[in-house]
């Protein structure tokens, strides 16, 4: 039996024990600024206030954002990053896509531990300083970067010796210590902007059944920043992704292993994939299929899209109950706003078969693929050097 999320909402709202509510980090953030320890990069300009786990409102800036890209998205799921940019452009918000940005390097850190707290904090603060220099506010694409940067913020607040060390390193680069007022994940922007996105919807998502995998590093690491909404799951689970999918008219269905991680494992996905494949299929995809039978799995992090998508091929060969497309909610939102499935959402980089989903959405994927191939031919003939934003909307 499938469990529609609407049923879960009817449960009593979950009240948190006030004794266990962590302190708002902002007090320390601004105190340290007053003491001249760092600069706080403030949210200026229009923003949306969203509710977080312990009730504190969080500011999500609407525009003028500095896109802290994700190496896994840009490298292996480029339709993920492209869709984030495309949706922002369509809604008319300006942004900065920097070259003066490094990876957060946390994937490597969680995989190999060949780094340390000072190096990780220096990498984070170098990026924050680079963002501040442009006047744009950082928007973090990767769930792991987001989680790790929150960890870094906590550590820098707690340990003066770490601040001193990082200050010394950044001074060598001619940079000051900068900490943003809020660390904002792109999926929080999509959540905050869900009504604007829905108002630009070109494709109806009614009848599309969705399961959501919430990313561990989004809501388990430094949990207080994550979005929880009393109207979604009675505030018992993070509202991220689900809030957007529902705003677009899709039917979100629950499943019992929603809290489980995807199996990415950081090092496992690269050098020990037997674990990743087993976990992703047996604890996630198969459970979703059995309990919720979704048309698509939506998630909001690099590693989760990769793991849940790529793990299905080998499992299928072993006759397991898999075979459901996986994408980010950014790609899903872009599709709903009329984005091209290949030129924008780049679904040809995905492995699990997404074509039945496109058909259900009323998209002629054969025609769309022919259009993409025609563009690639133009590139091949040297008629154009690159495809532009105008080309992909033509």
């Amino acid at each position: 039996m499938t469990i529609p999320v609407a049923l879960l909402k009817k449960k009593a709202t979950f009240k948190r024990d006030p004794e266990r509510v962590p302190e708002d980090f902002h007090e320390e953030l601004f105190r340290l600024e007053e003491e001249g320890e760092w600069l706080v990069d403030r949210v200026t300009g229009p923003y949306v206030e969203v509710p977080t786990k312990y009730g504190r409102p969080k500011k999500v800036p609407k525009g003028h954002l500095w896109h802290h890209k994700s190496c896994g998205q840009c490298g292996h799921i480029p339709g993920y990053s492209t869709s984030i940019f495309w949706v922002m452009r369509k809604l008319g918000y300006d942004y900065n896509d920097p070259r003066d940005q490094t990876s957060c390097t946390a994937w490597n850190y969680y995989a190999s531990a060949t780094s340390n707290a000072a190096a990780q904090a220096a990498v984070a603060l170098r990026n924050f300083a680079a963002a501040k220099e442009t006047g744009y506010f950082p928007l973090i694409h990767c769930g792991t970067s987001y989680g790790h940067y929150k960890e870094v913020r906590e550590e820098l607040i707690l340990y003066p010796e770490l601040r001193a060390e990082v200050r010394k390193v950044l001074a060598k680069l001619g940079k000051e210590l900068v900490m943003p007022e809020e660390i904002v994940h792109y999926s929080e922007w999509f959540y905050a902007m869900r009504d604007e996105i829905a108002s630009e919807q070109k494709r109806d998502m009614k009848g599309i059944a969705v399961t959501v995998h919430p990313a561990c590093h989004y809501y388990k690491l430094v949990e207080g920043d994550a979005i929880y909404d009393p109207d979604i799951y009675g505030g018992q689970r993070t509202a991220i992704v689900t809030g957007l999918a529902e705003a677009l008219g899709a039917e979100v269905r629950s499943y019992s292993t929603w809290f489980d991680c995807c199996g990415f494992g950081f090092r496992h996905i690269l050098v020990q994939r037997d674990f990743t494949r087993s976990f992703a299929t047996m604890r996630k995809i198969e459970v979703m299929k059995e309990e919720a039978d979704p048309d698509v799995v939506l998630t909001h992090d690099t590693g989760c899209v990769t793991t849940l998508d790529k793990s299905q091929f080998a499992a299928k060969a072993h006759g397991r109950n898999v075979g459901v497309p996986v994408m980010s909610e950014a790609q899903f939102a872009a599709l709903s706003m009329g984005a091209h499935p290949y030129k924008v959402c780049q679904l040809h980089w995905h492995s699990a078969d997404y074509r039945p989903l496109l058909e259900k959405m009323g998209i002629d994927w054969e025609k769309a693929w022919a259009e993409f191939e025609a563009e690639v031919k133009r590139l091949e003939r040297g008629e154009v050097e690159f495809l532009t934003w105008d080309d992909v909307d033509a």
Partner: protein
Amino acid sequence: MATASALLKLDAAAGFDDVSYEEKARLFDEVRADLRYPEYLYGCYECGICVAACPSARFYDFSPRRIAQAAAREDVELVYQQMQEDIWECSQCFSCLRCPRGNNPGGVITIMREVAVNNGLASARQALEGYSRIIYKIMSTGTQVSPDMLQPDAFPDWGPEVKDVSDNLALWRKALPPETLHTTSTGWDVDPRTLTELYVIWFETGALEMIKEVDEGLYTILEEIMEERLEEEGITP
């Protein structure tokens, strides 16, 4: 699987008798000296909530409870054994932050791994075998995974799409509308100045030095690349 685990690994240390107690104690002290350690471990109720949430515990003979307990009991022998046998099985998902005692077993493991790397422990060398190209990529280019890593022989289990991507890589990258994404050997186009700044960070924080203990060859290559660039920019690390 959990029952089998209980049979396989006991809560008491076994083996590694060839390593002196003093050496094991020195390594444990290094773990405890990490500034994050006091915030990561407050004791342990032995409730097993972390185990219920832990993905690695489902597929390996591994338990975050055992990690937290061994450290809380200051069991020098067992902590050493875990540094050699357990820590690389963790997925670093941090589901164990559910711990009602406020522990962060995954965080304790991060620190134990760092100490294992810093001291060139056999488990660290073994865990990082076959992983060097990733360390090379992240430390030298500033992005961790690149489009050209998608090779069918590296990911045979990911389906035929990997070959399609690899066959069409250059053209498909040019088809991406964001101007920063036309790269094939890095995730995006990183400014040379930015890369120099990253190298300074690796030198100054000792992160580069950590590689020396686990992969001398890789260390030499990285050091050369970085020193050359810093020299060009007139920076002495």
